[in-house]
């Protein structure tokens, strides 16, 4: 297998490209996804290659174009609407939650709704409170949707290809900080990655660190730092929230006896709550200390860098939480 290094954005672009070529019913729509190639360059060149009928520049009408996409999905297309900043998904909630997610169920199975909502997440770019949010927990709370939160170019490409072949609505979250900054190996050969299979990004025996999307990277860096202290951390990336690979998480904690959950969504009533609850339940007899939850601080995301970085998990904060777990264990 030949492998190159691609950025996260290039991996996304390649998945879109391959699937546009494969499936004539697939089409992309969103703001400046066409001629401009997407504000994050994820659709670069696709307009030229597939034409304006398959890579469509929409007006600034998130509710409208997402609604249109739902109807197109119900009638045989596979639309891929792009929500430029995940923050704007608030404008399209009704279409995603009340229409796309429910149509199959409400019709007793008469329709399929193959639609892949691509949305961004992630702070750390001094973009302010309305351009930095991570709302993946909301959608994981909605039956009928699948939610994907990839952390590497490899995973992004393989999971997006799976999403683009799914007969169901998928909300696919891409951390915008990774687009240009995260590079990684991606094979030339075609591959897909199934939903619902967590990936062990690093094996370890003393503690389990669960992280997703961009948070996998500071978590791996923290594991590196911990290794120097002689602490062996296992890093697990669930990769999809719905379906969730509970088994892999629980097994790891049964082995290590402790866990820290790291997520860039808000901590309260967020992803860290679900994962902590799942682990606390499934590994109840094996936990030596409470599961630590390290989400984003529960404040609107501030613009000023010293404030903003305070709110986001990083290596240092992860290491601190690990120490807390290990101290708890020693009690």
């Amino acid at each position, binding site marked *: 297998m030949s492998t190159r290094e691609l950025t996260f954005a290039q991996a996304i672009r390649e998945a879109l490209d391959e699937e546009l070529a494969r499936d004539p019913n697939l089409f992309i729509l969103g703001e400046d996804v066409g001629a401009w190639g997407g504000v994050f360059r994820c659709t670069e060149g696709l307009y030229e290659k597939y034409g304006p*009928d398959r890579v469509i520049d*929409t*007006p600034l*009408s998130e*509710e*409208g*174009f*997402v*609604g*249109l*996409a*739902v*109807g*197109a*999905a*119900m*009638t*045989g*297309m596979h*639309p891929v609407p792009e929500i430029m900043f995940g923050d704007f998904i608030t404008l399209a909630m*009704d*279409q995603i939650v*009340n*229409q796309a997610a429910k*149509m*199959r*169920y*409400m*019709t*007793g*199975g*008469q*329709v*399929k*709704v*193959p639609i892949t909502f691509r949305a961004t997440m992630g702070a750390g770019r001094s973009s302010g409170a309305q351009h930095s949010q991570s709302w993946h927990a909301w959608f994981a709370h909605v*039956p*009928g949707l*699948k939610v994907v939160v990839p952390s590497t170019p490899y995973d992004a490409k393989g999971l997006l290809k799976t999403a683009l072949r799914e*007969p*169901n609505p998928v909300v696919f979250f891409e951390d915008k900080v990774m687009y240009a900054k995260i590079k990684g190996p991606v094979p030339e050969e075609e591959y897909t990655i199934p939903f619902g299979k967590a990936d062990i990004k690093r094996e370890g025996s003393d503690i389990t660190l669960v992280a997703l999307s961009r948070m996998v990277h500071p978590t791996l860096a923290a594991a590196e730092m911990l290794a120097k202290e002689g602490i062996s951390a296992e890093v697990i990336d669930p990769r999809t929230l719905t379906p969730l690979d509970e088994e892999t998480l629980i097994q790891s904690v049964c082995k290590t006896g402790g866990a820290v959950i790291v997520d860039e969504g808000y901590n309260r009533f967020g992803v860290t709550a679900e994962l902590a609850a799942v682990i606390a339940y499934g590994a109840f007899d094996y936990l030596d200390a409470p599961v630590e939850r390290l989400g984003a601080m529960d404040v609107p995301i501030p613009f000023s860098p010293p404030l903003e970085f305070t709110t986001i998990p990083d290596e240092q904060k992860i290491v601190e939480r690990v120490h807390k777990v290990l101290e708890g264990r020693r009690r």
Partner: protein
Amino acid sequence: MERLSQIAEVVVDRDTMIEMYHRMLLARAFEETVFDVYRRGWMPGLAHLADGQEAVPVGVCMALRPDDTITSTHRGHGHIIGKGGQVEPMMAEVMGKATGYCRGKGGEMHIADVKLGILGANGIVGGGIGIAAGSAFTAKREGKGRVSVAFFGDGAINQGIWYETANMAVLWKLPLIYVCENNQYTEYTNYRKLQAGEGLVARAEAMGMPGLEVDGNDVLAVYSATLEMVERARRGEGPSMLVCHTFRYGGHHVGDPGTKYRTKEEIEEWKAKDPIVRFEKVLVERGVLSPGDIEEMHSKVEKRLAAAVEAGRNAPYPDVSEVTEHVYA
């Protein structure tokens, strides 16, 4: 702004007229029967009836091909019957039975028959509009001249999604017909209190599509206007908007008598313009049907609905194991 011709009534053949009449009768009878079913406690929840409005769904849908699609509303039974939906699985659905169109999972507000191009009633006011735009998008891509119809009410027109999709539909010349069924009221408020401006045709025209207002209790007028819009759409000339003035006899739902916010006079006035009675007159005058034919059709429809109720009542509820089916494909 291009104008549509002002509803020159098209020539309609005998069979089509009879089928129109038949569907109007079915639609009326369905509503009356559901009301009865509700009062007897044979259905769960509430129902939203549209008796009095039959000329709109039937007039519009009879102008459509089988492969054309519609999206409907919370007040959607007539649209479904208009497009050829069968009253038996509809009634079973209203009762929450496994033999219902949606296996009892959808319910009264969510009946769909996707094979017939009925993409579903919708409980979100305006919720069908985006879906209809999407179906029009697909239709344009298919290139087979198929069109998409969005039914919605005088209340729904004030949802932003109408405006957002209208803009795209005009830009992209989608074969989409917006049908606003103005039954004068939202739930309990007259539309004039909630609708500013120069009327809905003006709104449509400002967005770049032609619009027409018709007497929504005149099935042939509705049919003729729809045909013109449909043909325009099939020719690839884009969307248009039909506004039909009509009235619901009953309340917002079966639990509302509909008499608190509307006067007796207003209701009586509209009943005097009853779309079925009016159409009957036309049919007899034109020699399409005799009074005897009409009576026979009435009684057939009644029998059919009685049987649908019976069948629905005898049908099983879905098995509890079905609850987790159809969440995902």
